């Protein structure tokens, strides 16, 4: 890439979550020389990896807000991007279920709100129709609101696809690189990382849970991040037959509430809790949180109580004191902050990227290279409904490693795990392998395949197994 001087990037993006990766991709394709900095060892390793994995319509956002606009636009963009890259999407639709008079009375209002958010196909349905569509629902449900455009998406592949495309187009990804300081300087911004200073004409802060800390380094205090923990339970694939739609509760002021959703991997997701915390690293599950979810699950889908839990995890959302996204361009500081991106951020990410690109263009930013238009990356077919390599004779014919099962629960071949260890976005740890292949994510959680996966990853990456098992990341 050409740059505007020795070692000066057009843009430094702090944060390699789904939002940072989307922005890096957009700006790189527009012709910018981009460097992405993240303290984590993989892309999408924070909030982006532990969410409800829903492609939102934005039907329940506050009309007129930036979030409303970007989620609606993001839905269109991400659906098309998923199609182009082969990222799994389950077009299941959502059914928001009312459980009492008050909630039922709120349905027409929610439908009107959906329409105001551009979601014009949301329909109020009566209790009979709700039961017809979801016969396993618990007793006491009333009518509901059908939102056909709410879909399940593979969240991990989205960050990976954005990053893969950005890197292929020339962006530089510096992982395991925490930002320790950032200050405006002549001609741009200086970002300090261990042992180096990165200089760029513009800084984009997409640091998620750390966005307010970066904001303060830049002399701003636009918002404060309060980590809001969401615990989630993933149920065994045998639970998948219990539901057809994403089952949503009537949202409250504070939260979208506990939902039950199909996943693109063929499981069922229950969650999240909503707990405001101080600690920005506390992704532990708690007995109280798990109990709360199980109780909610029993009410919504009683048969869920008889199913095994495959995984339990917690993610932190970057909640702020503001109700809307906090995306601001400070021209004088050569700085764009992208904060307060809530649970809708996965969907909105490509629209946020577009919005940030427009803000920068409006601020007079010009890029050192011409726009590029590469083919979108082909992501591995990880969806339960997709043709996995183990079931693909043509793929197996190219390489028998795709025909050798490694992880039986998730039907992952040796070839896929091997592939995940190579390339510009190679996994550096077992968590990265899990997110790229699904290996060890099934009902036995690596009971059968764990040792073999560790041995293979150690061999392929040249990493000491002791190092690999020092962390689940």
């Amino acid at each position, binding site marked *: 890439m050409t740059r505007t001087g020795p070692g000066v990037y057009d843009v430094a993006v702090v944060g390699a979550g789904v939002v940072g990766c989307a922005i890096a991709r957009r700006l790189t394709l527009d012709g910018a020389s981009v460097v992405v900095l993240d303290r984590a060892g993989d892309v999408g390793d924070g909030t982006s990896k532990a969410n409800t994995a829903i492609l939102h319509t934005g039907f329940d956002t506050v009309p007129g807000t930036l979030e409303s606009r970007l989620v609606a636009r993001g839905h269109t963009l991400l659906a098309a991007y998923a199609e182009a890259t082969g990222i799994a999407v389950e077009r299941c639709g959502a059914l928001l279920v009312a459980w009492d008079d008050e909630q039922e009375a709120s349905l027409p209002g929610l439908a009107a709100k959906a329409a105001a958010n551009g979601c014009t196909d949301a329909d109020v349905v009566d209790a009979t129709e709700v039961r017809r569509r979801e016969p396993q629902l618990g007793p006491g449900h009333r009518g509901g609101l059908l939102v056909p455009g709410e879909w399940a998406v593979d969240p991990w592949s989205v960050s990976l696809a954005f990053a893969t495309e950005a890197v292929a187009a020339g962006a530089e990804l510096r992982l395991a690189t925490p930002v320790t300081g950032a200050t405006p300087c002549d001609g741009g911004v200086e970002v300090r990382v261990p042992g180096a200073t990165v200089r760029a004409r513009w800084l984009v802060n997409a640091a998620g849970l750390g966005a307010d800390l970066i904001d303060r380094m830049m002399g701003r205090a636009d918002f404060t991040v309060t980590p809001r923990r969401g615990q989630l339970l993933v149920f065994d694939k045998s639970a998948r037959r219990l539901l057809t739609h994403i089952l949503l509760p009537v949202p409250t002021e504070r939260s979208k509430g506990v939902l039950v959703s199909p996943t693109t991997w063929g499981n069922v997701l229950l969650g999240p809790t909503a707990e405001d915390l101080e600690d920005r690293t506390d992704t532990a599950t708690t007995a109280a949180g798990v109990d709360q979810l199980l109780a909610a699950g029993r009410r919504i889908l009683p048969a869920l109580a008889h199913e095994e839990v495959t995984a*339990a995890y917690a993610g932190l959302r970057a909640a702020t004191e503001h109700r809307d996204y906090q995306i601001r361009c400070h021209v004088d500081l050569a700085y764009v902050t992208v904060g307060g991106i809530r649970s809708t951020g996965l969907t909105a990410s490509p629209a946020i990227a577009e919005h940030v690109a427009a803000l920068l263009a409006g601020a007079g930013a010009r890029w050192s290279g011409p726009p590029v238009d590469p083919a979108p990356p082909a992501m591995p077919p990880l969806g339960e409904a997709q043709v996995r390599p183990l*079931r693909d004779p043509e793929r197996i014919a190219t390489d028998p490693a795709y025909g050798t099962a490694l992880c039986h629960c998730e039907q992952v071949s040796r070839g896929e795990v091997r592939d995940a260890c190579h390339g510009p976005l190679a996994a550096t740890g077992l968590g990265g392998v899990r997110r790229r292949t699904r290996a060890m994510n099934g009902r036995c959680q*690596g*009971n059968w395949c764990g040792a073999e996966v560790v041995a293979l990853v150690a061999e392929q990456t040249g990493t000491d197994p002791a190092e690999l098992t020092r962390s*689940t990341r």
Partner: protein
Amino acid sequence: MTGPAVLVVGAGPAGLSAARELGRRGIGPVVVADREAVPGGVPRHCEHAGFGLQDLRRSLSGPAYARLLSRRAEAGGARILLATTVVELDDGGGVTLVGPGGIETLHPRAVLLATGARERPRSARLVPGDRPAGVFTTGQLQQWVQRGLPVGRRAVVVGAEHVAYSALVTLRHAGVPTVAMVTDLPRHQTLPAFAAATRFGLRVPLRTSSQVVGLLGHGRLESVEVEDRTTGRVDRLVADTIVFTGDWVPDHDLARRSGVELDPATRGPWTDGAGRTSRPGVLAAGNLVHPGETAGIAALGGRDAARRLAATWSAAGTVGAAAGLEVAVSGALHSVVPARVDPADPPHRLLLRTTAFGPGRLVVARQGGAEVGRHRLRHATPNRSLSVPGTVVVRADPLGGPVELSLV
């Protein structure tokens, strides 16, 4: 290829023993499919001796036992398809397999499911806390050590039944000291000699009536929170390794997807004394049916199902669904296998599981309130095999109501 006489799913002790027995009794061809690249099932990873005592009357190491069972099955004429996953049993009796040769459909006369069981992982046990590395099941640990992968420095073992002591031995073999064993029950559930040797010989303390309530550690496990349920006290034990043992769950996915009904207590298919399930043409045996039993008991179960299948086999006949008198449990008893019996031709044994020590050791079989049989157990220990001779049901009326077993 179409139409073997019998397709056995799973090349573990139950499946291999069944295949051999079918061959010995002239039933064929028999195909055994296993998703692993090496036959033998769980014993492949258990390096200790003691395998084969119940079924072969000799003691072998797990891998040697696995090899012997495979050889015997093949000597009996069975063909073992490895790295082959059985995807589906369709309604018309077709069975879809995916293996190195691609996808193929077989039309066996009967299918014997012998897919075994595994220990519930940490997540399924809903143990809260961080998600650090260093969290194992016994089966996983055994494979780790067999491959020479590094395990850790200090371990906590969850459980105090046979398999927990086996995990402790494996840890010791890998040079990892166990700092505590934790059981939610008031005492251990293994042989007194094992427990004493561990406690006094190896000086591993056993925390009874306790449970793990939290794992701490952002990368690698750093400590384990253990709550004493009697006092409510929570101790934090420094450990970088934790092994969750026991708490078996059958690998019942294929059975379930094939419309075979499950026993809510075992979570495996319920069967009759001949291994038949609720679905005609589909049998089940081994730890899929009675999770947590030894390899030997699983092998005997496979052999017995094969024997009974062969005894009723006819060239044109079909294999029916499970039939017979219902057997149920009450009180502390948790499960009984099989769940249907023929009093005129009872199974060799009924396998029971109990949730508590006691109250007594006498198993009483009643039908309509009237006692039809009894058997005194040597012990009534949770998480351990409890076996009652099938003869306790011979006096039951075949046309009467369910036989209920209780412990007094």
